[in-house]
């Protein structure tokens, strides 16, 4: 079975005034279609560089990245992205924020004016699935942080991307809201079935959501461990209190402690 995302021996160095920063070194990572992968590691391990490489915003210095059998050269257009900061546009209503990618990406872009009603309906339906039924006409500042992050997820998914890239999307939320959003993401993923790369610092988050956890080393980042998580789906939130779950989190924690020191 060929991989959907295939990262082979990728290295990346940022050239700066104070010498280069060696961000990634010989990174290998592959994902099957529909897989939920989490990438964890100490801070500054090049996780954000990974986001830029996979979405084609940066070319690697060495190595190759393939998505769905085609080499990535330039923006991939089939990925959705969400970050720690929801980055919603305050002058647009929630629904128009969600629709933003459709105004950019083909083939929706050229159809957008003509089929606006249909797209709006689609956006409303998507908002409803994340629990924001009826919030489409609000402005982002009228929403709580957790709700804004749900909108950000909808914006990342509105153009039906095959790949969803998440860069610590829940890091700025309080613990309860974070767990709520884990479930929102879990349900979206199970319903729609896209491929996910979730970059996170939160080991419980990674263990709860992912099929596989990839642990990266400190800079320059390389893969030091891949840990499959085979709790049955759908996973209830109570799983987080299961001893087997806690054992995995502890093992990951120990591993990261190790690579931080190294």
């Amino acid at each position, binding site marked *: 079975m060929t991989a959907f995302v295939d990262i082979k021996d990728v290295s990346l160095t940022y050239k700066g005034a104070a010498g280069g920063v060696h961000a990634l070194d010989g990174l290998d990572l592959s994902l099957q279609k529909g897989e939920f992968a989490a990438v964890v590691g100490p801070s500054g391990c090049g996780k954000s560089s990974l986001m830029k490489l996979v979405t084609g915003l940066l070319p690697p210095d060495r190595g190759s990245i393939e998505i769905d059998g085609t080499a990535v050269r330039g923006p991939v257009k089939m990925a959705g992205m969400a970050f720690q900061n929801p980055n919603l546009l305050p002058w647009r209503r929630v629904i128009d924020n969600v629709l*933003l990618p459709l105004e950019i990406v083909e083939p929706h872009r050229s159809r957008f004016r003509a089929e606006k009603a249909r797209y709006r309906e689609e956006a409303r339906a998507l908002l409803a699935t994340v629990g924001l039924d009826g919030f489409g006409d609000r402005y982002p500042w009228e929403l709580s942080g957790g709700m804004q992050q749900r909108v950000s997820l909808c914006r990342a998914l509105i153009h039906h991307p095959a790949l969803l890239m998440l860069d610590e999307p829940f890091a700025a939320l309080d613990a309860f809201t974070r767990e709520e959003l884990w479930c929102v993401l879990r349900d979206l993923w199970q319903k729609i079935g896209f491929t996910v790369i979730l970059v996170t610092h939160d080991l419980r988050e990674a263990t709860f959501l992912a099929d596989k956890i990839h642990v990266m080393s400190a800079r320059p980042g390389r893969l030091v461990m891949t840990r499959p998580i085979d709790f049955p789906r759908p996973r209830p939130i109570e799983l987080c209190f299961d001893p087997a779950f806690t054992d995995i989190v502890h093992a990951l924690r120990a591993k990261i402690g190790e690579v931080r020191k190294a």
Partner: protein
Amino acid sequence: MNTNTIERLSPWLFTVAMFLIWEAVCRGFKVDPFILPAPSQIFMAMGQYWWPLAKNSFVTLWTTLAGFALAVVFGIVLGLVVGWSRTIYRGLYPVMIGFNSVPKVAVVPILVIWFGIGEIPAILTAFLISFFPIVVNVATGLSTIEPELEDVLRALGAKKLDIMLKIGIPRTQPYLFGALKVAITLAFVGTVVSETIAANAGLGFLMVQAGSNFQMPLVFAGLLLLAAEGIIMYVIFAYIESYFVGWAFRSSMSAAA
């Protein structure tokens, strides 16, 4: 409700209080009206010379607005160009700062040689003094787009023009309207500077004339009218700002709450 009313009335209360204190000081210390006329004397001068004051206020107002309009158009265009690319930004910035550092008083004689005495030097001085904040603010609005948001769109294949149209220009609006409030008051400064040096109409001209005739209450009447024009224009632009970019105030308020 009660504190609300007080807050609404407070600008008027403070203004009236300022005039009352001014009046009291002038009377109490028997200040020579030639040094500092009391408000009552100034208002009397306003009544006495209402027609020349009105005529010259109008000249100052329209020349200021003409110069300001030029500044808005050029400022927005140049701001968009400068904010578009880092290279242009870096290249033009020193030139603009140098340009802005030149005292506009020094430019007026040149303008007079080019265009003669009259309204045109006043309009151009108002333009020169007020376009800089507009350029800087528009450029700042464009160049401070959140990099992550730019990544989201670029990953979808957005071109620079898409990013400018969808994000850059809308998010520049609060910066622009903020700059307009500063620029309109600066434009008055520019006009009056030019009028005091070389003009045959306008409040600046009137004040110079009145000063050379030792009519200090009339000089101060000119000053007060200038201040009033500045305040009125500021209020108009503040209102336009809150109408068009109210979202900017509300979103920052919710972030603070």
